[in-house]
């Protein structure tokens, strides 16, 4: 506060001097007045300093009491101070001339601008008042006259009022306010009542900052960018609205010259508002210096001023208490009323009406707390009473039937088991008579554990299913009702040296069975009697897969060996008409091209150049080998289109040519996929639509061959698809997987399996739908074949019915491989299966 006070007082002092000057100058304009004031500021400051040091008012100003204690003469000035203000106001009222008014206003303004009234201000006012009084002693209408006019009563009351105000109160920062509150206003002759007075209170002026911006800025444009006036001849307006013209400004040379010439140039600063350089005063320079040194800008501020002991220390001892009121009597005289009360109690005790230290009439230890109308309002829904201990079983008897006793082995087991794992917490024992029963050692321990359970064990509700486990098994029609289905082996087709039979296929007329074994020989067997009727040795390693064409008017068999597709036909076995049909179908392309080799018809298709349709040698042709197609990689699967002209092969090791679609009649080959979505496992044609299914390891993709688009992707949920078959109606699909699962997809329903079944203990090798009957079968490495019934309803809302019918056992598991391939005999509920034990079995109903 101190520096601020100091500045405030200095400005105050300055303004007072200015006002004096103004008075002497008479009718000087406000602007000149201001300039003058600025000019005299230094002087006034000097005065101020002197004043401050002389009166030591500024330093003391912080402490009002100190001030009060120090200057006693000031106290006498109090009435004068009051009267002075009255004087001023009276003068204001009296004075008619404008200048006087102006002056007064100015003066008022100045006094108003001083914010935060404090003692120093007031002191300054005293001084001012004194001066004023001295100066303006002459005016006739002095307050003293009004003083005199006051009645003695008024005077007395004023005096009393003055003295009743504690000095410290009256000198407070809000001395004026407090005075106003107390009703100490000015007494002014009333205009309305003749000879009367009215009390007039001083306006309370809000103290705004005593910054120079409010006090002496002649330019009134305010805080705006001054470049707005750059084009103008003037730089703003003064209080009276007159233009302030731009002071003459020399060019840069002038400036430079003045800078070099004037030794004080470096201590001047540019006043933007007035557009001229202003010489900084010593004081301001001092402030700057101090700020540079990170000191308090106020030179007078002493951070280490000595403590002034007002109340303590030598000579300052106060003898007077704070309150002079005498100690009240009640402080040292015993209370009469209390005495009376006590005496009353004493009397009661003497008479025995009150018995001291009597045990209070406590509630009885027991009383009736339950009534018939009690309601069991359990605390909340999750309330769980502690479970009761189960009742003892016969095994706990002191004399149980002998079979309850543990034999040695069980006893050992009991002793070795952890306490928690024991079935009973005691060793069953049999005593011949009750008197021989010893005390039970663990009784305290058990009770303790029960207590621990009661308050420590978390309780949860466990719903115990009280249902018959059999009810969990789904209700399905009995297999008996779903006959016929294959039940037992009727024919076994044995291969020499028990070579693994990788593939088996039955002819569409249901007469022949073709098998491909690992010795590289394709054999055709008579289905009924198991006689081998034909064989081709393809000399290309193991027969990977073979398949009869589903077209009944021809008899075509395709067998796959490494790098080669062989189109075969047992011409001698079939009817001549069929044989002719077959030959014409296969050989037309040779006739047209007349070449032994033919590059795929679709020449524009890249990457099929390496595929050659080769005409076998004459001797081979006589044996029924019709065409060889040389393909890259080892084809693993062949899948016929229903019409018997197209067939697709899969060779997983042939990179982007792993899936090929061949056309027999034109001897052409296409590679439908430029890029494959993964390692293709199996492919299959849709029985009725031009759709093509490609199974990769985990997904099955359905493509539309006509529009060459992907129709859907089925997510199998299995890890590695091994086999795939499509229902003859084309809307259901089953897959078998190497991770023992069989998944049934309903293509109308979802992209996810309708059912995933896991009943084989080893990987599934083959899944096949019966072409006509509602049956399907799955073969697995565990050597079993499962036969299922599957009814697919016309009603789309009804789920397909799948009923397990039979487990066919008979194939032996060799080297961890069981049944490899399955094929249904068309039109009959018969199944042909090939196993790794070199046997092919026909299962009949």
């Amino acid at each position, binding site marked *: 506060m101190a520096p601020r006070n100091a500045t405030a007082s200095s400005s105050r002092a300055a303004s007072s001097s200015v006002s004096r000057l103004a008075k002497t100058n008479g009718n000087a304009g406000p602007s000149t007045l201001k300039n003058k004031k600025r000019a005299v500021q230094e002087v006034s400051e000097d005065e101020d300093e002197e004043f401050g040091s002389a009166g030591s008012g500024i330093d003391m100003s912080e402490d009002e009491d100190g001030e009060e204690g120090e200057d006693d003469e000031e106290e006498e000035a109090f009435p004068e101070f009051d009267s002075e203000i009255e004087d001023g106001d009276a003068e204001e009222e009296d004075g008619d001339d404008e200048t006087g008014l102006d002056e007064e206003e100015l003066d008022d303004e100045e006094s108003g601008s001083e914010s935060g009234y404090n003692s120093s201000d007031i002191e300054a006012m005293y001084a001012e008042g004194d001066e004023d009084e001295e100066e303006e002693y002459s005016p006739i209408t002095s307050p003293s006259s009004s003083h005199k006019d006051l009645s003695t009563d008024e005077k007395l009351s004023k005096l009393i009022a003055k003295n009743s105000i504690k000095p410290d109160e009256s000198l407070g920062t809000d001395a004026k306010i407090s005075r106003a509150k107390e009703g100490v206003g000015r007494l002014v002759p009333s205009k309305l009542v003749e000879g009367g007075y009215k009390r007039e209170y001083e306006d309370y002026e809000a103290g705004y900052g005593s910054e120079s911006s409010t006090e002496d800025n002649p330019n009134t444009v305010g805080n705006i960018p001054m470049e707005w006036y750059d084009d103008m001849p003037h730089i703003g307006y003064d209080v009276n609205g007159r233009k302030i013209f731009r002071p003459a400004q020399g060019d840069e040379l002038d400036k430079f010259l003045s800078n070099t010439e004037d030794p004080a140039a470096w201590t001047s600063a540019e006043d933007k508002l007035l557009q001229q350089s202003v010489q900084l005063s010593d004081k301001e320079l001092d402030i700057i210096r101090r700020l540079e040194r990170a000191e308090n800008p106020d030179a007078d501020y002493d951070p280490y001023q000595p403590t002034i002991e007002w109340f303590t220390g030598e000579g300052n001892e106060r003898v007077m208490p704070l309150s002079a009121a005498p100690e009240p009597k009640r402080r040292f005289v015993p209370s009469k009323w209390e005495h009376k009360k006590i005496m009353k109690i004493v009397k009661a005790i003497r008479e025995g009406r009150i018995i001291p230290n009597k045990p209070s009439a406590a509630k009885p230890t027991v009383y009736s707390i*339950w009534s018939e109308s009690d309601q069991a309002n359990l605390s909340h829904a999750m309330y769980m009473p502690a479970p009761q201990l189960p009742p003892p079983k016969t095994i706990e008897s002191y004399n149980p039937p002998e079979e309850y006793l543990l034999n040695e082995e069980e006893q050992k087991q009991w002793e070795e088991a952890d306490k928690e794992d024991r079935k009973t917490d005691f060793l069953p024992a049999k005593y011949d008579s009750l008197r021989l029963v010893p005390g039970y*050692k663990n*009784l305290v321990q058990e009770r303790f554990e029960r*207590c621990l359970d009661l308050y420590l064990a978390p309780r949860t509700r466990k719903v115990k299913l009280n249902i018959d*486990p059999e009810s969990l098994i*789904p209700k*399905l029609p009995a297999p008996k009702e779903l006959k016929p289905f294959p039940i037992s082996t009727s024919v076994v087709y044995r291969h020499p040296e028990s070579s693994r039979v990788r593939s088996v296929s039955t002819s569409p007329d249901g007469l022949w069975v073709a098998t491909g074994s690992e010795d590289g020989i394709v054999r055709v067997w008579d289905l009924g009697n198991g006689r081998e009727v034909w064989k081709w040795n393809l000399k290309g390693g193991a027969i990977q897969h073979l398949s009869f064409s589903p077209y009944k008017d021809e008899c075509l068999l395709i067998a796959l060996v490494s790098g080669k597709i062989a189109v075969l036909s047992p011409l001698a076995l079939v009817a001549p008409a069929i044989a002719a049909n077959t030959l014409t179908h296969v050989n037309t392309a040779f006739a047209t091209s007349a070449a032994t080799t033919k590059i795929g018809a679709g020449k524009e298709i890249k990457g099929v150049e390496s595929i050659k349709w080769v005409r076998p040698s004459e001797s081979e042709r006589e044996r029924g080998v019709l065409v060889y197609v040389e393909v890259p990689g080892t084809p693993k699967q062949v899948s016929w289109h229903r019409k018997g002209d197209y067939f697709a092969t899969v060779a997983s090791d042939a990179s982007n040519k792993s899936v090929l679609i061949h056309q027999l009649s034109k001897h052409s080959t296409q590679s439908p996929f430029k890029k494959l979505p993964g390692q293709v496992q199996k492919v299959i044609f849709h029985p009725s639509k031009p759709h093509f299914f490609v199974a990769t390891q985990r997904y099955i993709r359905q493509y539309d061959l006509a529009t060459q688009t992907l129709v859907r992707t089925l997510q199998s949920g299995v890890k590695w698809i091994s086999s795939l078959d499509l229902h003859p109606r084309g809307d259901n699909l089953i897959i078998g997987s190497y991770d023992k699962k069989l998944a049934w997809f309903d293509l109308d329903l979802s992209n996810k399996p309708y059912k995933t079944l896991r009943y084989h203990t080893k990987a599934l090798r083959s899944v096949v739908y019966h072409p006509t009957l509602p049956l399907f079968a799955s073969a697995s490495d565990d050597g079993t074949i499962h036969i299922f019934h599957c009814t697919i309803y016309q009603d789309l809302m009804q789920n397909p019915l799948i009923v397990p019918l039979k487990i066919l056992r008979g194939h032996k598991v060799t080297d961890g491989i069981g049944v490899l391939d399955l094929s249904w005999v068309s039109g009959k509920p018969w199944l042909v299966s090939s196993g790794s034990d070199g046997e092919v079995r026909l299962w009949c109903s």
Partner: protein
Amino acid sequence: MAKIKRKGESGAAKNYVTRNQALKKLQISLSDFRRLCILKGIYPREPLNKKRANKGSSAPATFYYHKDIQYLLHEPLLVKFREHKAFAKKLARALGRGEWALAKNLEEAKPVARLDHLVKERYPTFTLALQDLQDPLNLVHLFSTLPTNPIPGKTLVPSSVIAECSRLISEWKVWAIRTNSLRKLFLGVKGIYYECEVPGQGGELVKVRWLEGYEFQQHVPTDVDFRILLTFLDLYRTLISFTLFKLYTEENLVYPPPLDVELDERGESVGAFRLVEKKDNQGVESSKVSKKAVRKAIKGIKASTGGDADVEMDEDDNAEEETNENDEEFVERPTKSGEEVEDVATAPLTTYNSLLATTSNAASTSKQNLLFSPYTFYLSRETSSRTWEFVIRAMGGKIITSLSSPQPSDDSITHVIIDRPITVERMREMENGRKWTWIQPQWVADCVNRQKIISSEGYHPGQLLPPHLSPWDGEGELDRPWLEDAQNAAITAAQEEADQEEDVIEQDAPAEEESDEDEEIAEKEEAGKYPPALLASSLDPENVSLLHAAELEAEQNGVSHSAFRNQLKEAIKANKKDASTKVASAGAGKKSGEEDLRKIMMSNKKAKLYEKMQYSNREKAAEKENLERKRLAIEKRKRKEARA
């Protein structure tokens, strides 16, 4: 847009608080919290998802319901705890300063926590209290048998607590005797289990079971925290005393019943309590007040029903009589003096009041409870009078203990319960011409469990007792066929023995006398060699005509009757075995095959559930089978021993 759900502001995170959070919230120590939980019956919960309840942390924590803890916040007991803490501090300070007078004053004004409100709060109805009475009774019984002199470092149970516990159990037993509500009794290796039927709210009968250890010094393990037990005991004592109050008042008795110090010091347990009918002051007063009104009413009614009025008048008189002799003893005690004994003999129940009481009881409880009412038992000194006096009295019997008469010299005695071997001569000597039934204590228990007087055969002193079965071991347990057979086993065994003796006499030929193993083999071989009629009869054992035919056939073949019967038995046995195995194999083969297939179509969830159920069923069956196998082995061994 839906309101954004912030984490930890709803659901499990909000519903559960960990124990430490609870402590912080309640601002109490762990031990105080434990006490509070025990008394208020608040227990931890298992959230479905611990991580979610623990705000993402998977650290192990004990969870409580937030609401439970909230509910603890304004528990009056909590205030008492704090008061006690302050009191303890003040007392310690006073003692430390040696301000004895102040300490005494403080001690007198010691804050006492009462648990009455907790009893009512935890058990809003009387029935609920009875349903939860098992643990309280167990613990109180245990504490009543703890050593009264504290074992340093082990128990710090004040002897007053032990005394109160034994008082409570005596009162409980006295009540059970009075109302004849004992239903079941089981002598186990841990102690004796009792079951009473107690009328709850609205007369609903609640079964209360408790365990009383045998009368031995209790082994007190070192790792038992008696503070926990004592906290539980505090609550349980309060609960039992309130329960007893209710039960006694319903019987129109004064609670607590006054203790006959003399008898108590003589070592009586149950008998030391005198049951006092309530004076029913209020009732008398009200009747006095309304006497005129009553008479008026009677006059009014008289015209229609005269009898009723008479009854009412009688009752009034009774009330007055009762005021005169209110200290009537319900328990009839034979004492040493001969006169009194005679008195006992002539008048079964001494006072009018008790007569009334019994008649009223008879109305409520059926006759079967008073199983032993015609009998007087003498308890030999080695039997536990604590147990048997209670049981026999509760079943309506009369008791003469060795305490009152060291030698059984009473004419009224019908049964002597003895648990030590004794010679027949000594028995006869003691009987002195009177006819007493000498039995072991198990006979009493078996009678109670079967609700009938069973034959004392097999229960005589020194005899090997029949097995003692649990009355709670399932309904079928007691009449399991082989156990029923055990009753007749002696008879059949005797018969068989006789038969075999005959056999031995008749067939001295060594052909039949082979080792048992050979016999078994022979049995199997012979199975096909039975004569046709015998075979037919064995296939249909109930058919009398077939049996007759077989007998004729045997006669023709010159087979003796006993031999024929043996043959027949064997044949039947063999047939049964065959049949059972056939059925089993067929059923297993066919059924299992079918099931296997249908199980393929089960969903994963159901399949797992099914497997679980099958597993537990198999376990149970295996246990049962194990028992059965053991039993058969034992029987066989016994038979062999008998034969040898």
